[in-house]
């Protein structure tokens, strides 16, 4: 029996470049940065910049709905609603043509409802026990974003929350695709979200020397693959993808953006925070994704790199691409959209999944901005302006790596 094919039929996002897919894609092609000074929020911190969302979700969502959701779940809901409507399944659901029992959700967050946790601790300390919100727990629990999407859209199949730090969003895509391949569901929303722009996580990331301390123009600080890179910029937001079995999508005449060809997940078992400098775990994940997709490495035309703008990680990613793909690695059109969005942590893999699918759909790679002097240890062809991708059947790789040594590679392909 042939394997169930999985396709992408809907996309959604809210992130530092825009509150929807169209404005985000426009921002990518314009090479716009979403990084700015955070003002009062970051007062007294060693790092005072970040990449907040362009559109406050509280302005988009119903007021009462928004006040019962942590910011991370607000982002998830905005992105999921856009993806759902984009797929046309909203209309199909209303017409009774989508079986909620065979509809799942895999929505990730790296950190969870940290704003809710900390604001309720502030209330406990300053105003007393009585002021701790009775809905704090359902707001801050790790599976709140996934549950929020399930509740709103009526998904009654498996509703999962994969957690693997900065690889979480990509792991959600992999998990959702698996649920469809295993025949458990016909439709799944995959996504990742994060809302951690708060003094405590910012201080923690700064103290572990993960964040850039560059005091220059904020829009130039996230500079993956550049010699002057010195750490990531914290972003926030969410990305969501509607995945569907090919059969289900074709039966309803859906528009198909791309196919999920294969996925690979590994762990470094090297260090809790540092990547394996040789990128061996990441290389294995990419190799597994290629095997799973049953394609030749030569079919891969584009990579949306994890590249967060840290000194070690960006070089390790170049090494792993060369280790797996060989000489053809130099032909890849590689980009790091984090140069524009900052690092969305658990939302990163999902937003970059959306970007990878759009790149295939438009056959156009978004640029990497701020690449003035490419690190000679990065032997890759990095797109510094929007760059055409080749015609024909091509594949694109979305890489995500996370603390704890998590590595997730997802291969998408043009659908034909």
């Amino acid at each position: 029996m042939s394997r169930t094919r999985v396709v992408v039929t809907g996309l959604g996002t809210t992130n530092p470049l825009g509150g929807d897919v169209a404005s985000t894609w426009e921002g990518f092609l314009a090479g716009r940065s979403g990084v700015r000074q955070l003002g009062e929020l970051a007062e007294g911190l060693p790092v005072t910049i970040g990449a907040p969302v362009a559109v406050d979700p509280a302005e988009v969502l119903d007021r009462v709905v928004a006040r019962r959701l942590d910011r991370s779940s607000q982002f998830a809901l905005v992105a999921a609603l856009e993806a759902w409507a984009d797929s046309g399944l909203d209309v199909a659901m209303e017409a009774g043509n989508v079986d909620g029992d065979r509809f799942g959700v895999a929505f990730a967050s790296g950190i969870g409802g940290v704003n809710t946790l900390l604001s309720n601790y502030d209330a406990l300390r300053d105003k007393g026990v009585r002021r701790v919100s009775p809905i704090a727990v359902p707001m801050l629990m790790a599976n709140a974003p996934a549950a929020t999407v399930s509740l709103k859209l009526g998904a009654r199949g498996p509703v999962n929350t994969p957690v693997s730090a900065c690889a979480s969003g990509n792991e959600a895509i992999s998990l959702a695709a698996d649920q469809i391949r295993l025949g458990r569901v016909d439709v799944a929303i995959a996504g990742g979200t994060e809302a951690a722009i708060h003094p405590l996580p910012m201080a923690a990331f700064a103290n572990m020397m993960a964040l850039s301390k560059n005091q220059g123009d904020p829009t130039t600080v996230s500079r993956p693959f550049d010699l002057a890179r010195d750490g990531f910029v914290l972003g926030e937001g969410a990305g969501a993808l509607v995945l569907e079995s090919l059969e289900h999508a074709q039966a309803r005449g859906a528009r198909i953006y791309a196919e999920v060809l294969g996925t690979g997940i590994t762990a470094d078992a090297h260090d809790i925070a540092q990547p394996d400098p040789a990128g061996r775990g990441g290389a294995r994940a990419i190799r597994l994704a290629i095997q799973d997709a049953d394609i030749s490495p030569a079919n891969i035309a584009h990579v949306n790199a994890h590249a967060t703008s840290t000194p070690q990680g960006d070089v390790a990613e170049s090494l792993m691409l060369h280790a797996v793909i060989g000489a053809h690695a130099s032909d890849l059109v590689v980009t790091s959209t984090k140069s524009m969005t900052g690092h969305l942590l658990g939302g990163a893999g999902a937003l970059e999944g959306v970007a990878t699918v759009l790149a295939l759909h438009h056959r156009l790679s978004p640029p990497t901005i701020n690449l003035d002097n490419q690190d000679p240890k990065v032997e890759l062809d990095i797109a510094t302006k929007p760059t055409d991708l080749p015609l024909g059947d091509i594949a694109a790789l979305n890489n995500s790596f996370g603390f704890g040594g998590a590595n997730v590679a997802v291969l998408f392909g043009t659908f034909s």
Partner: protein
Amino acid sequence: MSTEEIRAALADIVNEVAGIPADDVQLDKSFSDDLDVDSLSMVEVVVEAEEKFGVTIPDDEVKNLKTVGDAVAFIERNRAA
């Protein structure tokens, strides 16, 4: 504060917490049956009301506050004390 002033201030809280139009929050209305305020929202309303009116509403008392009028009467009785 007059009864009407307390009702109006409570109505604002119910609107803020549960999104119910303030004009619907009248003395004869039941929180759960007429206004669709669920139990967790009711806890939020109670906590907001305690701060707003300077009263303490014990958990045991909350179940007795079935209507908006019950709550307004409780607040009136306990504010002066």
